[in-house]
C-alpha cells in the first residue's frame, strides 16, 4: 500500500486519476481503516486529503457556508456560527460514532463511504446542500442527494473528490433538525435517520419544507411528498399524519441485523414528525 499526502487539490486529483489499482481517499479514516482491517478493502493507494486547505476550512461564503469535506464533526461543533445557523447538520455530524470518532470523522467521508445509513447526509439533503466536486475535468456542483446511487456506489467519476459542501443562505424563519433512531443511546448505526428543514412565515405557516430519510432505502432519500405534506400547514395533526404516511411510503427498507422492514417504515414516520416539530420550533425563533 502506498500513502500519499498531497497539499493541493490538483495533486490529489492527479494521484487518484492516475491510479491503476484500488485508490481511496483518506479523510478521517473512521470507515476506511475499519474496512482495511476487516479485509473488505485492500487499497494500493491511499490519498490523505487533510493537508489541502479548502478541504479543512469552514467559512461563511455568499451568505451561506462552505464546509471543507474533511472538516471533522468536532470542528463543525466548535465553529461559532455554524451550529446556530445549521444546528441539524452539526448535530447530525456529531451523532456519528463516539466523541473519538467525531474527532476525526468528516461529512465528506460520511457521504462517500456510501452507506445509506450515514447520519450527516439526510441533514445535508434537507438543508439543500450541494457538493463541490473537483476532478480531472474541473469543478462541478451537484446536489448532495445525487452523490450516492446505491450502497458503496457514487456518481463521482474516477479522480473526482468532494472538496467542500455549500450550504445556501438561510432565509429568516428557517431552521433544520436531524433525528435518528438507534437501539442504544449512542454508538449504533442509524436504524432510521431523518433530516427536516422548514421555512416558517410570521403567522406560523410553513412555506418551504424539505424532508430527507436515511437508512430506509438503497441511498438517503429526499422525500418530496413528505415536504409537500407540510407546506401550507402549521404542523397540525392532519399535516403530521400526512407527513408520517409520506415518510413511510417512501421507504424501501431491508430486514437486517439493525431493524426489520416494518419497523423502519413505522419509525420513519415517527422521526419525521418529531424532527419536524423540532425544526418548526427552531424556525419560529429564528
Amino acid at each position, binding site marked *: 500500500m502506498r500513502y500519499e499526502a498531497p497539499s493541493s487539490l490538483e495533486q490529489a486529483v492527479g494521484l487518484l486519476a492516475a491510479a491503476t489499482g484500488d485508490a481511496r481517499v483518506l479523510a478521517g*479514516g*473512521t470507515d476506511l481503516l*475499519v474496512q*482495511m*482491517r476487516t479485509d473488505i478493502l485492500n487499497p494500493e493507494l491511499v490519498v490523505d486529503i487533510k493537508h489541502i486547505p479548502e478541504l479543512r476550512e469552514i467559512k461563511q461564503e455568499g451568505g451561506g457556508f462552505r464546509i471543507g469535506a474533511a472538516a471533522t464533526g468536532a470542528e463543525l461543533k466548535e465553529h461559532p456560527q455554524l451550529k446556530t445557523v445549521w444546528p441539524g447538520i452539526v448535530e447530525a455530524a456529531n451523532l456519528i460514532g*463516539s*466523541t*473519538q470518532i467525531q*474527532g476525526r470523522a468528516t461529512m465528506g467521508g460520511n457521504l462517500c463511504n456510501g452507506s445509506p445509513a450515514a447520519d450527516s447526509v439526510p441533514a445535508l439533503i434537507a438543508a439543500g446542500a450541494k457538493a463541490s466536486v473537483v476532478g480531472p475535468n474541473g469543478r462541478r456542483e451537484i446536489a448532495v442527494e445525487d452523490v450516492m446511487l446505491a450502497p458503496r456506489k457514487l456518481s463521482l467519476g474516477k479522480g473526482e473528490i468532494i472538496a467542500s459542501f455549500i450550504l445556501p443562505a438561510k432565509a429568516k424563519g428557517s431552521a433544520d433538525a436531524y433525528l435518528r433512531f438507534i437501539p442504544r443511546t449512542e454508538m449504533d448505526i442509524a436504524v432510521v435517520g431523518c433530516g427536516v428543514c422548514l421555512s416558517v412565515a410570521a403567522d406560523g405557516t410553513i412555506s418551504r419544507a424539505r424532508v430527507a430519510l436515511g437508512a430506509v432505502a438503497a441511498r438517503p432519500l429526499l422525500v418530496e411528498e413528505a415536504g409537500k405534506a407540510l407546506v401550507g400547514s402549521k404542523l397540525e395533526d392532519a399535516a403530521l399524519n400526512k407527513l408520517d404516511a409520506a415518510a413511510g411510503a417512501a421507504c424501501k427498507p431491508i430486514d437486517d441485523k439493525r431493524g426489520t422492514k416494518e419497523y423502519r417504515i413505522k419509525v420513519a414516520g415517527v422521526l419525521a414528525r418529531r424532527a419536524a416539530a423540532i425544526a418548526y420550533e427552531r424556525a419560529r425563533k429564528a
Partner: protein
Amino acid sequence: MAKHHITATVNGDPVEFLCEPQETLLDALRDQLHLTGTKEGCSTGDCGACSVTVDDRLVCSCLMLGVEAEGKSIRTIEGMAQGDELHPLQQKFLEHAALQCGICTPGFLVAAKALLDKQPDPSETEVRYWLAGNLCRCTGYDKIVRAVLDAAAELRGA
C-alpha cells in the same frame, strides 16, 4: 513494503519511528514505541480502549495510520501523571474504585481528561455521553462517572 520514517511528539518528548503505511497509530505506539498502556480492544473504533489525544483532540488510535502522526503531538496514558503525582482523575479513579480489571482504564482516563480540559463543569449526562465511546464491561460505569465528576470538582476548586 518501504517503511515511512515518522517524527512526532509523544507525551511532550520528541520521538521517531518507522512504520509501514497500513500500520495504525495504535500499532506504532505499542509495537514501535513500546508504550503498551494504550490498549487494543476491537480495532474498529467501537470500544475506546485505544484512546489518545492528537493535537489535543480525542481520537481512537486504531483508526489513525501511524504515518498520519507525522508532526503531531500525541498524548497517551503514560503522559498523564506528572512525575510522582497522579493526575486528579487517576487519583479519583483509585479512590472511587472506578476500575476492576483495569483494561479500559487508560482509555477512560485519556477521554475524561479531554472532557475536563474542554468542559470543567460537566453534568452527569454530559459525562456519560462524552464517554459513550469507551466501553467498560466490569463496572457498569457508575463509579467511573462519580470519579470523573469528583475530579472535575477538585480541579475547579483547587
